[in-house]
């Protein structure tokens, strides 16, 4: 089951960046975490035995790396005031009103996702990447029935938080 790292990054680089953004709000730390995650994926590739899809495996390694990153680095969880650089989403880039509204909604979603506890955050982000309940259950070490319950509850929480922010 030999996998080429360059092709993995080409295919899943954006997915890894989204995992990083669900743990770190600050763009500098996000980039740092993305590099750490990518390195962890590279190291873990030789251990891939094909008992899940490569996407599930990559996500599993990425989330595990992100957990250890948070454990080591986050003195105050979810604190995004670490440096003054603003997320590109928040900046007022030229665009139509619809684009600006979409950017604001995406930012609200990301802020709400980062405020979730670890398990609902993982389940939600993996569902957004198209993983099945069964695959998510494998990664989190819970039953697929539980995944459904937590995911529905998380969506409800996110809706409420996003509406509250508006």
């Amino acid at each position: 089951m030999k996998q080429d790292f360059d092709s993995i990054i080409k295919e899943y680089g954006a997915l890894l960046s989204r995992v990083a953004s669900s743990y770190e709000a600050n763009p500098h730390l996000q980039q740092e975490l993305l590099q750490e995650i990518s390195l962890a994926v590279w190291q873990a590739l030789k251990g891939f035995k094909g008992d899940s899809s490569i996407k599930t495996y990559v996500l599993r390694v990425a989330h595990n790396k992100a957990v250890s990153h948070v454990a080591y680095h986050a003195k105050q969880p979810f604190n995004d005031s670490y440096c003054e650089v603003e997320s590109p989403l928040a900046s007022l880039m030229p665009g139509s009103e619809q684009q600006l509204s979409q950017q604001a909604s995406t930012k609200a979603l990301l802020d709400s996702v980062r405020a979730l506890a670890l398990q609902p955050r993982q389940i939600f982000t993996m569902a957004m990447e198209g993983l099945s309940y069964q695959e998510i259950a494998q990664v989190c070490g819970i039953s697929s029935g539980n995944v459904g319950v937590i995911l529905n509850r998380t969506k409800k929480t996110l809706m409420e938080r996003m509406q509250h922010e508006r």
Partner: protein
Amino acid sequence: MNDEHDNFEQLWQQQSVSKVDVGALKKQWRKMRFKQFFYVLLDALAVISLPVILLFVEKKMTKAEFVSFTVLFILLSVWFFYLVWLRRYSLRSSNDAASTADFVERMKLQYRQNIRIAYVNKVICFYTPLIFIGFLFALYFGDGMSTDELWRKSKVMLGVSVLFLPASWVWADRRQKKFEKLLADFEAKWANGLV
């Protein structure tokens, strides 16, 4: 329900993404591999060096010296393999753990092993002067070494005991406290669902 999922998914997928710096990553990978190789080499040299030295200077040594260094080599070897056994989770990457829950357990175990390594280092620092005294006794009673020669050797051992051992003990104590704090923080965060 599906509309809601689709809306979330659409929002999620349209967030801006950063690019992986593959060049920097490959540089980091090479550096990491070199460091790993270097540490393994150092560990291996530390274990191999003592029997090699013993082999070359055997004729110049007294019987008690030879026996003492052989015992020291055996103790060091036992310590080395115990250390490798304790560090078995740190030596291999645990990022591919079967699940997040499994990974968290591995991380906690890794912290506990590091605490134990630091503690054993402290114990070794504490008992090393006793080993020195035992060595001097062996030289005196085993080889009948002169008091002048014994005094010269004991000055070297005293120097090591005064300068090196307290510093090592403080270093190990700091590491023990650091990992105890990391473990406590991690367990608290995990219990609260923050990691």
